[in-house]
């Protein structure tokens, strides 16, 4: 001990260096086996009968309409959840009020509830045997086993994402700049557009991407309310399930490959935002503080 000076204290010994390499190798092996293999097999299965079959599997009318529905649902659910996220985080981070922690807990509910239970909740309200079921059917309105139900279920499972990204971010940022703008005479909307939005844009984009990714891929909740009507109420993940259950494995994996590509794009965009903006920076060397 006596021969060492301060900076040597944490210097790894040879044994520790071996340990480090072993841990990194174990982590990489786990990742390859557990994450890369499932992604790879999607593409090998999708292309197992060649490019022409792959193309034909995707250009089926059912798959294309499922793709359109998935796009439509995300295009409605994501903007709604962006509005909710901004509004909730403005209320929560810019004001002090009774029941704030209860409100934050409410926002976390979809992350704890099983997607199947989430879907069922809407069946209990809007389904034929639900609260509003008789009234809806009298007026010939369809929510369950129709597109509005799919949108509702998707909104439920994805609404926490934007809010949960913005709340800690806006909390950390504080409201000094906004208060200054108000004191200088700016009205509420110009404070939001000129001060708040430019400050939160990266965190907002990050949350939006998480919400969009989940909207595209949601399965359980949508499955319960969809009714699986081909060409009308099947989203792309449901189409994957139906093709798979019909033993059209290549077609199922071809459709799945589109969703996998979307997931990969999500990961890449997320990482780019993390690296360029500093939002959610994990695993990067931080600037030394001392």
């Amino acid at each position, binding site marked *: 001990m006596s021969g060492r000076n301060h900076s040597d204290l944490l210097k790894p010994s040879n044994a520790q260096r071996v340990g480090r390499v072993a841990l990194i190798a174990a982590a990489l092996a786990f990742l390859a086996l557990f994450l890369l293999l499932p992604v790879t097999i*999607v593409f090998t299965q999708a292309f197992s009968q060649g490019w022409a079959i792959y193309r034909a599997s995707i250009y089926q009318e059912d798959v294309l309409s499922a793709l359109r529905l998935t796009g439509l649902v995300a295009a409605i659910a994501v903007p709604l959840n962006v509005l909710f996220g901004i*509004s909730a985080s403005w209320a929560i981070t810019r*004001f002090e009020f009774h029941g704030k922690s209860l409100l934050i807990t409410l926002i976390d509910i979809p992350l704890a509830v099983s997607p*199947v239970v989430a879907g*069922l909740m809407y069946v209990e309200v809007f389904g034929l045997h*639900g609260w509003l079921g008789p009234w809806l059917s009298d007026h010939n309105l369809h929510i369950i086993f129709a597109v509005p139900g799919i949108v509702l279920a998707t909104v439920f499972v994805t609404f926490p994402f934007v809010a949960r990204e913005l709340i800690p971010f806006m909390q950390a940022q504080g409201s000094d700049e906004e208060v200054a703008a108000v004191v200088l005479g700016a009205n509420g909307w110009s404070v939001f557009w000129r001060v708040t939005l430019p400050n939160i844009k990266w965190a907002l984009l990050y949350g939006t991407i998480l919400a969009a990714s989940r909207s595209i891929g949601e399965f359980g909740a949508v499955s319960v309310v969809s009714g699986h009507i081909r060409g009308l109420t099947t989203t792309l993940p449901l189409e994957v399930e139906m093709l798979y259950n019909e033993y059209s494995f290549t077609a199922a*994996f071809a459709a799945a490959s589109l969703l996998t590509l979307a997931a990969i794009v999500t990961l890449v965009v*997320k990482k780019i935002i993390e690296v360029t903006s500093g939002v959610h920076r*994990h695993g990067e060397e931080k600037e030394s503080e001392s």
Partner: protein
Amino acid sequence: MAETKARNRWSLMTQSSPLPGFRLSMGFTLAYLTVIVLIPLTAILMHATRLGWGAFLHTVTAPRVLASYRVTLLSAAAAALLSAAFGLLLAWVLARYNFPGKRIVDALVDLPFALPTAVAGISLTALYAESGWLGRYLEPHGIHVAFTPLGIVMAMSFVGFPFVVRSVQPVLEDLDPAMEEAAASLGANVWQRFTRVIAPVAFPALLTGTALAFARAAGEYGSVIFIAGNMPMRTEITALLIVTKLEEFDYVGAAAIAVAMLALSFTIMLLVNLIQWRVQRREGKRV
């Protein structure tokens, strides 16, 4: 002080703010939550109460339902433990070491969040099936994964382990190296530094991540149903049982089982909040 109180008598606010938009943002937030969460949640609870207490208990403790709890909870517990082990390993490696491709590894950890569960389900099934890339090496040794409880555990671990990594990694990154240096200068070896300095700080985060992984695993549907085989009493998870009840038009039965699952979800949420509250209190004391 008295003046502020008087001004806010009709508002929820406990402290006045110069910023505008409280009523608008709060109103929209509450209206949204009421329509999307509170009304549907109440509907399902009300529907289940229609059964009456005796019939409710009878429904949620029927043998097939009990078997589904056993499968779900045991698999979720095993998956949570696996997730804790591998999540901790990945969080440690990402927080502590630098190596080529680290950014890619870090991005990949979120793959199970981004990959649709149905896709995870069919690709894991393809991997572990008898002729699959992994199944063909496991089956000859008598290790059956696809269509067994082990398959359920694998699918649940896949969706659960990122929760552990993302809970533990920031805590490890924020750990001040000075604390470890101090411990080392006092003669602590690697193991002592880990158990006495790092573990006490990282443990609450590990517990939170594991609880979140468990919650996700217990409610998981998409990635499990393809690999599970779905044999009643043996490999049927509770979430699937709810769907089965719905397909048989047993809406009340489905609602009753869903209420049992909700009770579990809320218990875990409470637990996670308690852990975080205790950590915050402890850190508050330290400052």
